[in-house]
């Protein structure tokens, strides 16, 4: 996810003379990626991509902390500004609402009543900062909750305390329950969303995602409830996705916000309500935190860091880097124990995570690129499938074939087709079992051309019971404007049976064969001695009364004993001229020997195929 924040705001938390350009550049190299830096009047705005494991950086404070650790490695002084930590004053009233938590749904709740707001107008500087972060200003108290969220990294909320009823019960929603958001939209809830209700069944909030219309704080509200809840990220994600409510709070909460940040958010909020809105704390502070998670300490060897980085990094540097990121470090000999700060506890768990922290702050650019040595892997020789496909392509391209890539998801199906559960449309619902329809469509898109040959090598997918489908690599192609002799001539370079597989689709000639059947192409060639004696060559023309099977006639001639080679030379009306090469391996054939062979051929062509010597 991305967070946008103003440079002026960042500077309240970061002491450094670094220019915005330097901050953007060095953060990108060693921390979160700054996707853009834009000037807005006197301020600058960073647009920063934060990876899902680092929700702690979806905050001004989090980014400042990173910058303070990163900039010194580039020779620029920087430190994280201290926040004056004044615990809020306790109010007189006992919390007037009974809060009943369900610890499976919410890990921590902090709440306090705030009363007597005097000012509802948000100061200009806050409106601007919120706007630069993409948040629209509403009323001052609501703006403060958003401001605190962006600053500290923990979402916060404010209710009209008097609209909540006597109780605030945390529970799971039932399927179909209706919730009306503060935007006035009605939502039908799925089973298992986290909701607050008032004890009578009335839902008063969809915590962590969106406030409810019936509990919203307005200018005529007397008492407010400032409320910070640390919700179960999985439920937040499911509900937010299902209802398509993608508020900033929801996108943060679904990533697992650190419950310990709630304190900081609470202090900042209370402070700002007092300072800017004149609101005073009117109740005791509620803090329900049944099971704080212990933070895991990770132990690893100094050598492990060196090995993974491919260089030696001094202990002192490791200390400096980890301490700047607020990790606690202790050494015993070569052994290192590291405890991450609470806001990093969920993404730093194994020694490799420590390597990452040290390596990125040390600077990936300072790790020299080097090719690995070592033994080479064993090469699987069994198939040679890639060489075969390459060879087929070479041959077809030499004969003017043009290769296409078409989509494997199609609208047609047969008995072997696999079907998608979630297709994008009806025309891409099945995995194809033949390339036919795709290639026909491709040919149809080129009707302005007179003559072409398109081909493709791609898998088809044939369903098998209880197993993955057979992914069968096919060669398929389509000829437009070719006659059958030309098309077969092209395919004969791949093998006779490819040529024979041609069928007619519309005005096209189409073929499709499994690539695996063409393995002979790769067979090493054997030398055949060049005949020592010249062949006798002659053309014989036959006429056929009915439709001749010219291919069969030719192979019959070619298979005649002492015929070295035969080809079909011309077709003129019903007359077919064959060229015959008479060849004896060991001698020159005499005229009378040729005569004998010729007679045999003529007898077969006239007798078996109905030809007549022309």
């Amino acid at each position, binding site marked *: 996810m991305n967070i946008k924040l103003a440079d002026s705001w960042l500077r309240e938390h970061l002491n450094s003379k670094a220019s915005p350009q330097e901050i953007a550049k060095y953060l*990108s*190299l*060693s*921390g979160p*990626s700054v*996707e853009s830096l834009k000037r807005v009047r006197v301020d600058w705005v960073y647009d920063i991509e934060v*990876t*899902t*494991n*680092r929700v702690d950086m979806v905050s001004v404070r989090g980014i400042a902390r990173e910058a303070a650790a990163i900039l010194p490695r580039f020779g620029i002084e920087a430190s994280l500004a201290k926040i004056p930590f004044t615990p809020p004053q306790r109010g007189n009233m006992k919390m007037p609402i009974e809060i009943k938590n369900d610890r499976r749904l919410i890990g921590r709740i902090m709440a306090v009543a705030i009363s007597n707001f005097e000012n509802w107008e948000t100061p200009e500087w806050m409106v601007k900062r919120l706007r630069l972060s993409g948040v629209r200003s509403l009323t001052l108290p609501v703006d403060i909750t958003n401001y605190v969220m962006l600053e500290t990294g923990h979402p916060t909320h404010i209710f009209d305390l008097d609209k909540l009823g006597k109780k605030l019960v945390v529970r799971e929603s039932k399927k179909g329950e209706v919730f009306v958001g503060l935007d006035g939209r009605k939502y039908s809830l799925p089973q298992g969303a986290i909701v607050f209700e008032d004890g009578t069944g009335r839902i008063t909030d969809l915590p962590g995602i969106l406030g409810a219309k019936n509990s919203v704080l307005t200018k005529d509200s007397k008492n407010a409830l400032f409320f910070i809840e640390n919700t179960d990220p*999985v439920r937040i*994600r499911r509900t937010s996705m299902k209802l398509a409510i993608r508020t900033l709070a929801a996108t943060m909460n679904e990533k697992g916000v650190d419950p310990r940040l709630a304190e900081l958010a609470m202090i900042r909020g209370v402070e700002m309500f007092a300072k800017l809105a004149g609101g005073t704390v009117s109740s005791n502070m509620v803090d329900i935190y049944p099971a704080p998670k212990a933070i895991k300490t990770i132990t690893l060897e100094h050598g492990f860091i060196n*090995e*993974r*980085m*491919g260089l030696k990094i001094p202990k002192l540097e490791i200390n400096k880097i980890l301490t700047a990121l607020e990790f606690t470090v202790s050494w015993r000999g070569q052994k290192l124990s590291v405890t991450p700060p609470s806001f990093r506890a969920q993404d730093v768990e*194994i020694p*490799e*995570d420590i*390597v*990452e922290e040290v390596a*990125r702050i040390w600077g*990936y650019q300072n*790790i*020299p*690129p*080097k*090719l*690995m040595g*070592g033994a*080479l*892997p064993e090469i*699987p020789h069994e198939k040679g499938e*890639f060489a075969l496909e*390459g060879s087929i392509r070479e041959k077809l*391209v*030499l*004969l*003017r*074939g*043009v*290769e*296409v*890539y*078409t*989509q*494997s998801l199609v609208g047609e199906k047969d008995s072997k087709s*696999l079907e*998608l*559960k*979630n297709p*994008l449309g009806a025309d891409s619902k099945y995995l194809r079992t033949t390339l036919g329809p795709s290639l026909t469509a491709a040919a149809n*898109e080129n009707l302005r*051309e007179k003559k*072409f*040959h398109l081909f493709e090598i*791609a898998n088809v*997918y044939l369903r098998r019971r*209880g197993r*993955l489908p057979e992914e069968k690599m096919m060669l398929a192609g389509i000829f437009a404007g070719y006659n059958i002799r030309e098309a077969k001539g092209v395919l004969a370079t791949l093998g006779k049976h490819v040529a024979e597989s041609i069928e007619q689709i519309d005005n096209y000639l189409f073929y499709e064969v499994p690539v695996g059947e063409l393995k002979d192409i790769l067979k090493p060639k054997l030398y055949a001695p060049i005949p020592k004696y010249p062949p006798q060559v002659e053309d014989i023309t036959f006429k056929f009364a009915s439709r001749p099977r010219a291919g069969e006639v030719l192979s019959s001639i070619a298979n005649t004993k002492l015929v070295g080679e035969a080809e079909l030379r011309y077709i003129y009306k019903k007359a077919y001229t064959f060229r015959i090469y008479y060849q004896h391996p060991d001698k020159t054939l005499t005229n009378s020997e040729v005569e004998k062979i010729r007679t045999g051929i003529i007898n077969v062509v006239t007798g078996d195929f109905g030809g007549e010597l022309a």
Partner: protein
Amino acid sequence: MDREITNLRNQAIAEINESKSLPSIAQIRIKYIGKKGSLGLITKRIWAAPERERKRLGILINETKAVILTALAERRVEFEKPQNDTDLTLPGTKHEVGHKHLITQTIEEVENIFRQIGFVRRRYFEVEWDWYAFEALGFGPDHPARDEWETYTIKQNVHPKLGGMLLTPHTSGGQVREMERARPPIRMLNISKTYRRQSDSTHTPMFHQFEGLVIDKGINISHLRGTLEYFAKSFFGHERETRIRPYNFPFTEPSFEVDVNCKRCRGKGCSVCKGGWHEVAGAGMVHPVVLANGGVDAKVYSGFAFGMGIERIAMMRAELGDLRQIYSVDLRYLRQF
């Protein structure tokens, strides 16, 4: 008679050397070699010579004939040579040729680049079990990549151990498959079709990726950088630079994003790049959990992996802006590559 034959030969060669055109060569041939030519006439007179001389004279005549024929042939070749006044600016005649697809060309080039440093090409499944595509790679049950609007799933019974059947959204599924096939040292290049449920100007539902996986003793970040730099310089040009930046993937730790500097602005930042750089790949050191799922001892071996889009690098180099154009079947596009 010997002298007569020799004279004839010398005379013929002189005439051949002085001849000025192809027709005159033909005439010379008729004059000396033709049926009624001079050599023919002499041959007929062999019978008049003493018997013991006949054989020798015959050989001499044949030799003379051969010499004259050779001279004729050589002279003919000279006449057939291009003349100095050929118009060298004449345009060539056009020959139509076939075309391998841009994607194929890119795949073959990638394969060749990696083969030189010992990578073995593989092609793992397009239809894959959830285990290989997600679970074994450390994707949690609620990871966004598993959403039904991200990854295509197949209507098929769920396998008791391997989970649902899906169209693989990345070539990373080949990592565990390769570890199951071979023991380290591993240098795999898995190139295959991949699928995501998206269709717009920067996404097609079907696309191609290649995945590099190296596992051996002592593999570290500098090896990953070296391999990526070797590839980028081989593919994009030796003057191009690479860098890695922190990122996050479930199956690598640490994880990186890989950038190549922009050809146009050389890293300064311009309208076609992102601050001077192009993102080209995701990468990282193989997560110990993934090694374990592939049956590799993470205490002994370490590794790195990277994944890149074939279309992406092909488009960058061909300066082709719209991804959907890559899958056009229009011959006017196909013939450009």
